[in-house]
């Protein structure tokens, strides 16, 4: 069975759904979201704070290839071990407003589990802009590369 990430995003809506099945027991999948040392590894970020409980706060800091620091933070609204995490998520110092994330963890079998992330944005425009960021980065990289090639051809 192919395990891959599925994004469900309809035009004109301000939400999206990210689902992924894992070759992992439910408990291990959940641990990956609550243990700071593990979060740091797969999210490629530094965990400054992670309070896994209702009204707990969390704060991550990612350093980009240029050395700039980007902070992400939020509050936990619901924390149900091996079941649910509901939280806000905000990219600090950006024009993007806070978003609401509903994470659901399910057991599929003893060795497999599933994560469903339902993310709600302030507006359709915000969601679309955020969705385009990785694409824009790709185009930028492509443009830079084209510039490089063009400069080298001269």
């Amino acid at each position, binding site marked *: 069975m192919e*395990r*891959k*990430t*599925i*994004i469900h*995003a*309809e*035009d004109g809506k301000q939400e999206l759904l*990210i689902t*992924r099945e*894992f*070759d*992992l*027991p439910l*408990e*291990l*999948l959940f*641990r*990956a979201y609550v243990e700071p040392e*593990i979060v740091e*590894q*797969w*999210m*490629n970020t530094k965990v400054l704070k992670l309070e896994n409980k209702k009204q707990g706060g969390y704060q991550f800091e990612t350093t980009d290839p240029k050395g700039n620091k980007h902070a992400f933070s939020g509050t936990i609204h619901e924390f149900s071990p091996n079941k649910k995490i509901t939280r806000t998520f905000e990219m600090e110092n950006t024009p993007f407003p806070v978003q609401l994330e509903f994470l659901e963890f399910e057991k599929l079998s003893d*060795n497999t589990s599933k*994560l469903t992330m339902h993310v709600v944005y302030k507006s359709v425009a915000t969601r*679309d802009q955020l*969705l*385009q*960021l*990785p*694409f824009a*980065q*790709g*185009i930028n990289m*492509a443009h830079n*590369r*084209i510039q490089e*090639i*063009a400069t080298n051809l001269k």
Partner: protein
Amino acid sequence: MNLRRDVFQAIADPSRRAILLLVASQSMTAGAIASNFDTARPTVSKHLQILTECELLKQEQNGREMYYHINAKKMKKVADFIEPFRNMWEDRFNKLESIMKTKIHEHLHKKK
């Protein structure tokens, strides 16, 4: 493969990016485009077909010739730009899975 959705795949190819750069400065015929590359004409035609199918390039008849130009239409459909976003999450989840797989053994031990 649904080319309509694979804009990102289209621009990931260096030859196709070079074609886009070329046509960006002025619209050109397929022949004029091909003369700028060492690649065989049918290969260039294939690249042009892919770029046209995902609407990065548009064709326009001018006299007897067909000219290619950059499609400036803004991408409004989510499907056009979602692939890199999906790939970003796929990379993260793949990493999560491989990290946690190393802990399966100790996890099974604990349960017994």
